[in-house]
């Protein structure tokens, strides 16, 4: 019998089971992974609010919160990049590979800009992190968010390279969809981070 790849094997096996069920196996995996990632951030947010509620002053006396301007700028960047990812995904659904390439380039570039802005901030955050619980939680939320952006940018690069060698089509775009989902998730987390750290304080 011919050798069959893993993915195909699952397809053959489950085709007769429930066609609708198995189609989104990969995406289901990604959604579950995202659920778990959300809980990680939920944990950090809970820590933030717990410490906020048990402290006399928040931020504590003598600690100045970082400026809000870069964060506002980054919020715009994040939203734009999510838009670009959406376009890229939509494009490949129409078999428009050039649209995919364009979308990933824009989104990836915006991701890099986002990271650059954060990196500039981090030079100051390092001392903030050691100043107080406020500073530590602040830094952690930014740090672990930006690590996700980093992963997202790498995924973008993978998409780009594979799109350039001609991978993906309207029928085979699982990785594009998965990356898009993850990217939306990162953007969503950023909005919450922004609201909690900078707006609520």
């Amino acid at each position, binding site marked *: 019998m011919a050798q069959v790849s893993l993915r195909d094997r699952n397809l053959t096996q489950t085709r007769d089971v429930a066609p609708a069920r198995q189609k989104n196996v990969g995406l289901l995996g990604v959604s579950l992974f995202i659920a*778990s990632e959300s809980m990680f951030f939920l944990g950090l947010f809970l820590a933030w609010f717990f410490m906020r509620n048990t402290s006399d002053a928040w931020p504590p006396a003598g600690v100045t919160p970082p400026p809000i301007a870069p964060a506002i700028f980054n919020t715009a960047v994040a939203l734009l990049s999510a838009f670009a990812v959406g376009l890229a995904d939509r494009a490949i659904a129409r078999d428009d590979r050039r649209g995919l390439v364009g979308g990933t380039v824009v989104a990836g570039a915006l991701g890099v800009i986002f990271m650059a802005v954060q990196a500039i901030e981090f030079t100051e955050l390092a001392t903030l992190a050691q100043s107080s619980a406020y500073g530590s939680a602040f830094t952690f939320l930014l740090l672990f968010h930006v690590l996700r952006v980093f992963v997202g940018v790498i995924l973008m690069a993978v998409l780009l390279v594979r799109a350039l060698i001609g991978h993906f089509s309207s029928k085979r775009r699982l990785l594009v969809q998965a990356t898009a989902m993850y990217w939306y998730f990162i953007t969503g987390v950023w909005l919450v981070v922004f609201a909690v750290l900078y707006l609520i304080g």
Partner: protein
Amino acid sequence: MASISIPIPLRERAKSGVLGWLATVDHKKIGIMYMVMSFAFFIAAGLMALLIRLQLAAPNLQVVDPNTYNQLFTMHGSAMIFLFTIPMLVGGFGNYFVPLMIGARDVAFPRLNAFSFWITLGAGLVMLIGFVFGARSDAAWTAYVPYSTKAYSPTVGMDIWLIGIILLGIGSTLGAVNFLVTVYSMRAPGMTAWRIPMFVWAMATTAVMVLLATPVLTAALIMLVADRNFNTQFFVANRVQLWQHMFWFYSHPAVYIMILPAMGIISEIIPVFSRKPLFGLRAVVISTVIIGLLGFTTWVHHMFVSGVDPAIERFFMFTTMVIAVPTGVKVFNWLATLWGGSLNFKTPLLMCLGFLATFVIGGISGVMQGSIPIDQYVHNSYFVVAHFHYVLFGGSVFGIFAALYYWGPKITGRMFDEKLGKLHFWLMFIGFNITFFPMHFLGLQGMPRRIATYDPGRGWELGNLIATIGAFILAFSVLIFIINAIKLRHGERATDDPWEGNTLEWSTSSPPPEYNFLEIPTVTSDRPLFDERMRTPHM
């Protein structure tokens, strides 16, 4: 049996030998590796328990010095929970039997599965090797701050412990994703929700709990690592409860992560050995899911004397006690399954009866602790130690041995020696109760846990001595199991279906081939094999 024919995929020919194991992505081989690994950690952690019991056998003994004692119970607890019970149930049985029971040829993401195993093994080895070479944590498995911060636990052992647990968390989270996708999308044709075997239901619920609870612990662990090594300020004084909240947000669900699969196991075995369907299958499934959900709402019962707002405490007292109701539903349904059955007292069933007899005691003492005033008396005493060994050993470990005896023939193709099996069961059952029942009284007599020794004259001598004797009976019983397992090589050959099983794993050969099933069966009830037997009376 009606079945459909699907071309059997061949991977690059199953490699044999060491490489075959190291490079495998076969869920069965991975399952076996998990089982062997966890059992090894069980022996290691059990030997630590024996040292603990020796030290406490009489007042003011110095079998080990207090520092070593503290390191021993820290590693004993951590290893039993993170390196034995969870990987054995979820990684071992879950991996091996979930795909078989749903009629699949593997899990959804086989390579991710292998990755989960290696990361778990790596973390376990790091923790154990660190322990052997003296890099030990002594902060208890709960690692409360500020004791676990740099100021009071300056050793690198603490960092190793923290990093080990982080890695274990990553391994089990990935595993959970895998299980859920597998169960959702790879079931045999006809396996609708109510035809999914109970064990699979339990594993799916467990996987959801792992998925949602673990990341919170991971966050807390990373925060502590950062506090210790990068001078962040999360766990400074005035906030000692933060760690406790984050820790128990994971670790209370974790206790259900350890019991639900064991409950799933006995829900499979009891019907087979009573020749009856599981009584109230739907009620059992629903209560499993409810336990899983409620499990997320009770963590503060570990903090009833920590200084939490009384109104909040009362809420958690309520949710804690409520869990007794769905758990009771399961217990009564198991009893009803036995009732009127045709009970075949083979070792697997005995282990299930052991589970029932002892778990109930642990459950009841759990409800007692759930009452805030009582917890303000028994918290952190040996009453609690008795409680959790009754649920963990009496529940999970009896469940694990039930599974080993039940599925052993399927995995190895050989039958266990029944006589030794029964001897193992009785010694373990008796030894277990001798070890842990007296601990209830020790706790009520005011003996705190985690003490390296104690003075005479407080009424604790007898109870401790008895417990120590019991622990050695227990160890002896485990020794008998090991002998039985070694004798397996020359055991009687197992047929495909030695127990007249109900679920799909018994429809394939023992041990199953790489691809599990030649043909994927079509399922028409919750007991496909039982129906099959009924159609062909003489088997």
